């Protein structure tokens, strides 16, 4: 990956910017040029909520090249409070205590390095919201 491709994804990676179709109320993350639900080409910018629920997750032990230093790590499918789904690493979590449907919130973290001289990639990850006992919250 190159600096330009890092740079152009910053609104999504740092601020969770999505596209919103005012005609049929569908949200797209990442943003796109047209609405595949109603065909509209007039999409607006929308900032996603930063809280949601963990729909499912995996603990990666055999990582793709570039992620060797971080394994094992958790990647999850998240449903945000507005119903939008996205894929993200789950951080600050014990895989043995994690479960489906736990509440999660967005944080900014380092994602990976790109060799000795390349840029460092940052982006959203999600962490479980802990209750007063330090256990993951699960409202449902």
């Amino acid at each position, binding site marked *: *990956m190159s600096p330009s*491709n890092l740079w152009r*994804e910053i609104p*999504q990676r740092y601020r969770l910017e999505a596209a919103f179709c005012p005609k049929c109320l569908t949200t*797209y*993350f*990442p943003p796109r040029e047209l609405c595949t639900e109603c065909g509209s080409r007039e999409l607006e910018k929308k900032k996603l909520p930063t809280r949601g629920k963990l*729909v*499912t*997750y*995996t*603990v*990666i*032990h*055999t*990582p*793709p*090249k*570039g*992620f*060797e230093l*971080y394994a*094992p*790590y958790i*990647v*999850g*499918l998240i449903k945000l409070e507005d119903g939008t*789904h*996205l*894929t*993200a*690493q789950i951080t600050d979590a014990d*895989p043995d205590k994690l479960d*489906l449907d736990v509440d999660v919130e967005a944080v900014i973290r380092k*994602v*990976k390095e790109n060799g000795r001289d390349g840029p460092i*990639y940052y*982006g959203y990850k999600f962490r479980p919201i802990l209750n007063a006992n330090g256990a993951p919250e699960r409202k449902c």
Partner: protein
Amino acid sequence: MRKVAVIGVGMIKVDHHWKESIRSLFTKAAINALEDAGNPDIDALYVGNMSAGQFNKQENLAPMLADALGLESKPSLRVEEGCSSGSAALYMALKDVASGMHDFVLVGGVEKMMDTATNDATFIISTVTDQEYEAFTGLSLAGINAMVMRLYMNKFGVKRESFAKFVVQMHENASKNPYAQFPFKISLDKALNSAPVAEPIHLMDCAPIGDGAAALVICPAEKAKDFTSDQVDIIGAWKASDTFLFHMRKDFLSMKATIEASRNAYEMANITPEDVDVAEVHDSFSIAGILAIEDLGFARKGEGWIAVEEGLISPDGETPVNPSGGLKARGHPIGATGIYQAAEIVLQLRGDAGKRQVPDARIGITHNTSGFGTSAIVHVFKAE
């Protein structure tokens, strides 16, 4: 459209072919198919290959392989559709012959994966997923399958044992297949207890990395009689796709592309899932195999694992699935896989499948997907 027949098949055992180059591997499979067909003059060449550029640092594959076969003066094309590149090549070759443009077409698939290290190969395979919003998070293709497997286990109350039973069945089938990478049986204990790759997926849930090449010769059905008495026709074919990002799916527990591709291919062939006598399905991971059994219509949603446990998909069952051993045990040299599947079905329908022959097979299908169901291609074959 003209009816199209397969008149020759060729396969190389999936393996670590240290001594073979991508060129020699493909050429040997092609020669096998040409000899099986009775050496007709070939009018065009199609090659399915996912990523010679990344695995072998070799692009511009079609003219290279055409030259190796002495076909450099004929039209040759490489077709890429991720893990379903083999079936994509057949899909294009089929339309070429059906349209009347060419008569005798050689269609093959090749992937030479073993020249790269495992973490490189895992990365190359993950390039079939969205680079910015899936691979960027460190998610592998195994990881997407693992998220689905966890959800499936939770929703339908299924344990890892049930997936392991599918793996045991695939190995048992492969033990009778001379082209299989893993031609041996394994115990349930071994299938269950291996190193975690992307939990809940463990190593034995995954198709292996390997080198392979396979090829077919197809021609108009009316010309097939001159070359073979065991003609197999391709009577249906369809390709469908789904949202490229997994998280955009409306249903995380089925592959819509498989449902759509099979529905249209069955309709073209004028068959129902009950008519299928043998199927080669895309079990890149055990969960993908279970979903395929459901989404192709052989079992209801959430009951694919029951079909495995009750023996419905075993070689003497109602709908034998992957008599070759599937991607899991026959092997999954990515861009070649769809052609291995087609070659297996043709052998089954000719009655030439040796010890792994399923009884009374007249209609067979192949099912080849890419990514996690971003594409699915289904072909329907029938013994004449």
